[in-house]
């Protein structure tokens, strides 16, 4: 019962390439959406459930990507080992910075994470001998897992969809557990959470690390999938976009964050035809969603669906009654 939504999501992800074989939109845009889902679901644990903002999350995405890129191209490490290294680097940096940063609240926390994201981005641009500077790093070898080399859009779609489902499953498990409730308690009332025996500083540190790990995981996959990384993929705009995905989909809902990530990815693709007007329409749509569905797309649309459903049921019972007469 707890995982009904998860199974539905998994079924859709599995059926899409079957229903639309060799479809660019499914395999390429779908894979990109899948990576965004991993990022948004991880960030949602921090923002949506724990109530702590991060405007620098692209930094951890970048750490995973660059760890994979540097370790495989410069040191010839196997992809999986580079991925583990990326997770360790992002996790340790998150752990080191979490305590000083997460003591801050509200706007101050937003500023600190913003600064953190900018610093990491500057390092990516400036540390030329390691990162290749603004030109980035090319020629990242394909990812090899247990002797299987992932090649082609379909295979990448499959791998990213599986990774996405894994992170959704992890997130659902966390939220509905003692620690998940502790995180939500921090958002509900940090004062009361402390009085209930929750070490809120530690809880915030842990969720920051987990969300960084999700991002680094997505980053490693991204680096191998694209075979190329550059600082542009991890700048401030990307961080802001990740926050937008969480807010747009609906905060404090794993599927909300996932839907927000998918919606924003599709929106970018769909608006490409408008060229110069893309950002204009993009902004207007976001404003409209926030005005008319402040609780987010996922929650908003499920409410609409429920209303339509009860309306429809109401009508059908009326029909049944009138037939009965």
């Amino acid at each position, binding site marked *: 019962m707890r995982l009904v939504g998860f199974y539905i999501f998994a079924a859709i992800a599995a059926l899409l390439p079957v229903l639309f074989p060799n479809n660019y939109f499914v395999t390429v845009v779908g894979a990109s959406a899948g990576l965004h889902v991993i990022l948004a679901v991880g960030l949602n644990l921090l923002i949506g459930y724990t109530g702590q903002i991060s405007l620098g999350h692209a930094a951890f995405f970048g750490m995973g990507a660059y760890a994979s890129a540097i370790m495989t191209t410069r040191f010839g490490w196997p992809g999986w080992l580079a991925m583990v290294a990326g997770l360790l680097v992002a996790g340790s940096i998150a752990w080191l910075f979490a305590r000083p940063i997460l003591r801050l609240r509200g706007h101050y926390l937003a500023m600190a994470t913003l600064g953190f994201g900018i610093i990491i981005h500057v390092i990516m641009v400036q540390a030329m001998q390691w990162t290749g500077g603004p030109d980035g790093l090319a020629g990242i070898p394909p990812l090899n897992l247990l002797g299987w080399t992932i090649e082609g859009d379909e295979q990448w779609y499959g791998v990213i969809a599986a990774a996405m489902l894994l992170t959704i499953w*992890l997130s659902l*498990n*966390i939220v509905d*557990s*003692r*620690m*998940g*409730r*502790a995180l*939500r*308690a921090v*958002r*509900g*009332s940090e*004062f*009361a*959470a*402390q*009085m*209930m*025996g*929750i*070490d*809120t500083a530690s809880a915030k540190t*842990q*969720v920051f690390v*987990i969300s960084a790990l999700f991002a680094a995981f997505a980053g490693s996959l991204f680096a191998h999938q694209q075979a190329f990384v550059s600082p542009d993929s991890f700048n401030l705009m990307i961080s802001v976009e990740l926050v937008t995905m969480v807010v747009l989909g609906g905060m*404090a809902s794993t599927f909300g964050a996932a839907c927000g990530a998918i919606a924003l990815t599709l929106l970018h693709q769909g608006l490409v035809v408008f060229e110069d007007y893309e950002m204009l329409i993009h902004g207007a749509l976001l404003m409209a969603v926030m005005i008319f569905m402040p609780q987010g797309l996922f929650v908003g649309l499920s409410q609409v669906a429920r209303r339509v459903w009860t309306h429809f049921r109401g009508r059908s019972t009326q029909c049944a009654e009138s037939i009965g007469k």
Partner: protein
Amino acid sequence: MGTPHLLTVEGLEQSFGGVMALAGISFQTPENLIYAIIGPNGAGKTTLFNILCGFYQPTAGSLRFNGHELRGLPPHRIAALGVARTFQNLQLFFNMTVLENVMVGGHLRAKTGLLAAALRLSRVRREEQQLRQWAGEALELCELANRAEQPAGALPYGLMKRVEIARALAAKPRLLLLDEPAAGLNDTETMALRDLIQRIRAAGVTVLLVEHHMPLVMSVSDRLLVLDYGSVLAEGAPTDIQADPRVIAAYLGGAVQYAV
């Protein structure tokens, strides 16, 4: 009195800038009693609670609870020693259901970490069942079992205050601090609250009660501490307090016609 003291407060001082909120108060709370703290607004009652649960660090003095010094400990460590509380202004987790709120109360009685939770190991599932059961018992005691699945924010005010009590009880505390539990309740709810406080004491929990509702205080408490301007004005059984001329002058005024 031969009963051991659960809480011993000595020379407790708290100043905020130049303002002396507590000017060196001392008292002892015997185990398994209902101990009320009364006094006019600004007497220092809530300050005392905030010190007891570690939210404020006192300027001077000591607080011994069950053999442990509380001074200097952060709130979550004090909670781990068996102190739970409710709040004068509601501090419910409005982003959760009633049951989940109360399950947070059981936080310290369980161990699941983030990693084990993420992988949903079988012991995590067992612990979840256990937490659910403990929360169910606390809800039962507070007569909230039929509200378990509702969002905490959807309840009427009186019931929200009860959820806070249930949440604190789910921690299985030895000392429960109730900060104005009757504020905003009607007469029926206040009488039900009195029964609840007595049931809590019967369950073996010592209750420290800050309250303005005099009929409730006088009928439910075993001993009283009267604070005024941050100092102890009087301490004793309800009948003694009601007869104390200093208390009458400072706080109760002329209106001492409550049932004894």
